[in-house]
């Protein structure tokens, strides 16, 4: 039997598949389609210190093999999430990863501390790369020193393993990865969205109200694979890979390039059953390409230099 399990800091995954942050809410809606216990883990929508209303609409638009989004971190705030959402998810037999965001290091710290106290969350995904908010977010994600600082603060605020989510909108992704590894990150999560824009011909304006939005979906998969491949050669902490995954072959691509687990974002919108369908397809797909286990595939595609 093919073995789908993956062991990562804080996460004993029965399989490497998890919905990506922001594409799955807090799991409630998708729990009407299938049993969430099937998932390796669930990454929750970003949590901030207090409620955020997010950006004006339109917030999304389709692009070629992808979409732009500028939700703007709309969320009810960490307290509300811990009270109302985490217990719901905790009833399932799956790992919970809390995606945290903030405008200031103090906010990041407070959110991390709050999740730590619940004892229901298995890991933190530190979102230093959200391109759709005016303050914080992306600045932390493009400056190695700032990224290291916020990583350290969040590490100190909790006992949970911290996966730092990197932005692809940088000249040198390896430098970012090294900086957060040195600052104590337990893992990486990559990639977040590429910053993009679409013009609306009728109104002669950017279509997304926030002007720019984050590009996700199959369109960005080659960028994600390239960045994971590059980073894997230079850091020792595990990588949760994402960006355009729509099937089990894509998962193998990410694993070969060096990811240890894979998150699925945009594809949930096309097909709400995408995660369980990929999980079901994985054993046969691994076998077809000559593998017995997921762990065996990780990083296999890297040609030593």
């Amino acid at each position, binding site marked *: 039997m093919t073995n789908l399990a993956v062991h990562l800091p804080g996460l004993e995954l029965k399989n490497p598949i998890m919905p990506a942050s922001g594409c799955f*809410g807090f799991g409630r809606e998708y729990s009407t389609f299938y049993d969430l216990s099937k998932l390796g883990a669930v990454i929750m929508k970003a949590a901030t210190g207090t409620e955020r209303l997010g950006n004006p609409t339109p917030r999304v638009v389709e692009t070629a093999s992808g979409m732009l*989004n500028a939700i703007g971190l709309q969320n009810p705030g960490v307290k509300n999430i811990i009270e109302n959402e985490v217990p719901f998810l905790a009833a399932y037999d799956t790992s919970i990863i809390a995606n945290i965001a903030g405008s200031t290091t103090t906010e990041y710290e407070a959110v991390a501390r709050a999740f730590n106290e619940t004892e229901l969350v298995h890991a933190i995904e530190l979102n230093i790369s959200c391109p759709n908010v005016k303050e914080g977010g992306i600045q932390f994600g493009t400056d190695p020193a700032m990224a290291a600082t916020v990583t350290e603060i969040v590490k100190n605020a909790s006992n949970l393993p911290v996966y730092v989510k990197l932005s692809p909108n940088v000249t040198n992704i390896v430098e970012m990865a090294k900086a957060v590894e040195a600052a104590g990150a337990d893992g990486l999560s990559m990639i977040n969205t590429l910053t993009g824009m679409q013009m609306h011909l009728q109104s002669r304006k950017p279509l997304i109200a926030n002007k720019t939005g984050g590009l996700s979906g199959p369109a960005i998969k080659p960028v994600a694979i390239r960045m994971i491949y590059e980073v894997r050669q230079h850091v020792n902490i595990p990588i949760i890979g994402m960006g355009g995954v729509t099937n089990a072959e894509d998962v193998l691509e990410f694993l070969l390039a060096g990811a240890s687990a894979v998150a699925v974002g945009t594809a949930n919108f096309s097909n*709400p059953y995408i995660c369980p369908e990929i999980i079901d397809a994985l054993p046969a797909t691994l076998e077809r390409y000559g593998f017995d286990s997921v762990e065996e595939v990780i990083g296999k595609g890297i040609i030593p230099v």
Partner: protein
Amino acid sequence: MIQKEKMIIKSVTNIALDTIEMVLENTFISKTAIPGQFLHASIEGHTLRRPISIADIDREKETVTILFKILGKGTEKLATYQAGMSFNVLGPSGNGFQIEDKQGTYLLIGGGIGVPPLYYLGKKLAEKQCQVISILGFQTKTNVFYEEKFRALGETFIVTNDGSYGETGFVTDIIERAGDFDSYFSCGPVPMLKAITKKLPTKPGLISLEERMGCGVGACMACVIPTNDGKSYQKICSDGPVFHAQEVSL
């Protein structure tokens, strides 16, 4: 409950300029949907689904009718689908028009491609022996559709912006002439809905809204509309698309 369902196309008819009527066979949707709900349709080659309202249902034949206008690449592609082909949808989606169980006179106000959901609503109201008055606005004569079907439900006014058919002007110009009514239901472009809710500040009314969607199930926060107090948002895909006229800030 929303399910992922396969819709088998029974017929495709061009009923007005760039406007397609499709009759789709599906047991689950035809048995469970209520007026004002929509289907979130998967179209080949497209990442995001397209929301299309349910325009009619035949529970015996187990068919659902949709009407859509060719506006962009998705609807263009959908219009090439032929009888015998199928596509999948998530549905029935959204809350739909809640009809009270009391008889009365109801005004339906539809604009353009906002007309479809009102037809199934009107049919349901007529079935309950309610009186139905319809005002349907279109840009121009070639856009007009379903006139006879609405007339069969009750008094119907057709308005075109350019006066090429029926009355001239906007739906709001006709409201006075429709006589008295208990409450209204409306669907159409936001400027139209704004004008209507402003004109009818005290009448109870339900309006159906549109916004660009991601998930269509309430998970991604793409499709929000601010509540009237400006302090929070409602999700059009799951809290709506139907709202009380004064509940949201247009």
